[in-house]
C-alpha cells in the first residue's frame, strides 16, 4: 500500500518544478508547459485527498476532471494568443514582451 505522503511528495515536486519553470524559462511555450505542471500537481492533490481521506465520495475526482477540461481550454486560448504574438512580433521570447508596462 502506497502511503498518501508519497503522492503528495510527487505533487509538491511537480508544483515547484512548475513554478521554477514559469519564472526562469525564456520561451512562452515552455512557460505554458510549466503552468500545466502546476495545474496537474493540484489535480493529483485533489484525487489523492479524495481517495485517502474521503473514500466513497466523488467530488475530488470530478473536480480534477473539471480542472483538466478547463486547463485544456485554457491551453488552447494561450496557444492562440502565443501564435498571434508570434505573428506580430516574430518571436515568443518573454523578455521582449514588455509592451504592457505603465
Amino acid at each position: 500500500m502506497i502511503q498518501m505522503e508519497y503522492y503528495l511528495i510527487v505533487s509538491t515536486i511537480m508544483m515547484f518544478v512548475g513554478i521554477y519553470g514559469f519564472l526562469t524559462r525564456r520561451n512562452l511555450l515552455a512557460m505554458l508547459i510549466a503552468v500545466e505542471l502546476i495545474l496537474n500537481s493540484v489535480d493529483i492533490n485533489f484525487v489523492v485527498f479524495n481517495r485517502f481521506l474521503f473514500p466513497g465520495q466523488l467530488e475530488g475526482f470530478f473536480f480534477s476532471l473539471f480542472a483538466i477540461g478547463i486547463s485544456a481550454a485554457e491551453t488552447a486560448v494561450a496557444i492562440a494568443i502565443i501564435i498571434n504574438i508570434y505573428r506580430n512580433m516574430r518571436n515568443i521570447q518573454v523578455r521582449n514582451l514588455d509592451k504592457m508596462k505603465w
Partner: protein
Amino acid sequence: MEYTIFILLLPFLSFILTGLLGTKLKPVAAGTVGTVVTGIVAALSYLTAFSYFGAGRNADGIFPVQIPWNMEWLPFGGNLHIDIGILLDPISVMMLVVISTVSLMVHIYSFGYMKGETGFQRYYSFLSLFTMSMLGLVVATNIFQMYIFWELVGVSSYLLIGFYYTRKEAIAASKKAFIVTRFADLGFLVGILIYGFYTGSFSFTPDSAVIGSARVFLPLALGLMFIGGAGKSAMFPLHIWLPDAMEGPTPVSALIHAATMVVAGVYLVARMFPLFIGYAPEVLHITAYVGAFTALYAAVVACVQSDIKRVLAFSTISQIGFMIVALGVCTSADPHEGGLGYMASMFHLFTHAMFKALLFLGAGCIIHAVHSNEMSAMGGLRKYMPVTHITFLVACLAIAGIWPLSGFFSKDEILAACFGFSPVMGWIMTAIAGLTAFYMFRLYYCIFWGRENKELHAEHKPHEAPLTMTVPLVFLAIVTLLAGWIPFGEFVSSNGQAYRIHIDWSVAATSLCVAAAGIALATWMYLREDRKIADGLASRFSGLHKAAYHRFYIDEIYQFITHRIIFACISTPVAWFDRHVVDGFMNLLAWISNKVSWMIRGMQSGYVQRYGIWFLGGALGLTIVLLLI
C-alpha cells in the same frame, strides 16, 4: 364612462405627435391636429357631463362620485399608495367642460393670432401638453395625482410664457413664473406629505376613523396645501409672477393665466372643502382674508396700469380673490346655512373663465391690430373693429356684474355669501366689485373711445381680426350672455344636494348700484377725448398713483430680499465655501493620488515573470501569515 380616459390620452398623443415631428409637419397640419383633438376632447367632455348629470341623483339626493378608471401607480408600504385615475364628481365634470371649451376656443383663435410665427408647431404641441395636464389635474383621484399634474401645468405654463425665447423679458417672466409657483408648491408638497403621513392615505376623503388621530395636524397640512394653491392662483404676496406672465402669446394668457391654470388653487380648496370645513374652518377663514386683501390690492393696481394685458392680469388676480373669499367665508357644508360660498365660488369660476377668456382674446385682437400693448397706441378703435368692440363690451359688462350677464349671477351669490359671513366682509367685497366695474370700463373707454392715437392709426390702419379669431369671440360672448341662467346650484353645491339659486335682491340691488356708479365714474373720466379729470387726479395724488403704477413696489421688495439679502449674505459665502473648501478637499485627494501613483509606477514593469515572482512572494507571505495565526 370608460371613454373618459381618451379625454386625457388624446391631447397627450397630440403633444407627442406634434412635438416629435416638429417642423417636419406643416404649421397648418400641426394646428389642425391640435384643434381636432381638442374638439374631440370637448365633445367627450360634453358627453361626460351630459351622461353624468343625466344619470341623476342617488337615494341620498347627490350625484354619486364615479371612478371610471383607476390604477395603483406607486405602492408604498401599508395602505399608502399613489393612484392614477379619473374621478368624476360635479366639480370635476364642470371643470372638464370649462377647460375643454376654453382650450378649443384658444386653439381655433391661435390659427389667426399665431399665423406665420416661427415655432407654430411647437406652440400647438405645448398647448396640447397643457390641455392634457390641466384635464388630468381636475380629474385626479387623489391629492398626489393632483400634485403631479399640478407640476405639469406649471411646466407647460413655463414653456408657453417663454415661447418667444429670443426676447429677454419673456425668458425672465417664464423663469419668474416657474420659480415663484415652484416655491409655493414646496408648501403644497410638505402639506401632502404631512397629510399622507398622518391619515395614511392620499385620498380626498379619508375614513373618519383615521382622521381622529390626525386632526391635530390637518389644519397645518391644509394650510400648507393652500400655500401651493395661493402660488398657482396668484394670491398676495405670491402674485408677482402673473402680471409678468403676460409676456407669453395672448391666447396663452387667455387659456392658462385667465381661465384655467390660475383657478387651480381655487379648485384645490374646493376639492379639499369637506376637510377644510370639517377640521380646519379657521384656516378656511384665513384664506378668505388673504383672498379679500388680494382682491382689493389687485383691483387698486388695475386702476392705473397702462398695459392692457396687465390690467386684465390684475383683474384676474382680483377675481380669483373673489372666488377664494367665497370659499373662505363658508361656515358649514349646508348651502342653506353658511355653505353658499362653495357654490358661488364654483359658479364664478365657471362664468369668469368664459368672460375673462373672452376679454383676453379680445385684447389679442386689439394687439394684433395695433401691434402694441399700451393704451396710448389705442383709443377710438370701435370704428375699426366692431365685432371685437361688441364682444369686449359684453365681457366688461359681465365682469362688472350687470344684469342679465353671467357675472352678475355669480358675483351676487358671492356677495350674498360674504354678507352671510359678516357685513364688513360683504361691504368690502361690494366696494371691490365697484372698483372692478370702474377699472374694466376705464380699460374699455381707453381702448375703444377716448383719445385716439391718430398718427399711429394713420400710419397703420387698425383692421378687424380674421374670422378664426372673431368666431371664438362671438361664441364666448354668447356663452357669457347665457351662462347666468344655468341653474348652477342644481349641479354643484357644497353638500351635493340640489340648491335652488334665488337672487337676494337687496344684495343684488346694492351691487348693481355700485357697479353702475363705477361705470358712470369711468364714463365721466375716460369717455371724452381730453381726460382732464383723470389726468388731474393722477397728478393730484401723484404719490399714490405712482405707487399703484409700480404695484406698490412688491416686485422691488422681492428683488431686494432675493438679491441683497439671500444672494449677497447667504448664497455668496456658501458658494465660496463650496468652491474653496469642499472642492479644495477633493482636489487635494486627487493631487495626493497623482503623486503616489508616480512613485509606485515602476512596479508595473511589463515583464510577466517579474509579476510571477511578486505573485509567488505574495502567496508565500500570505501562507506564512496564515500559518503563524
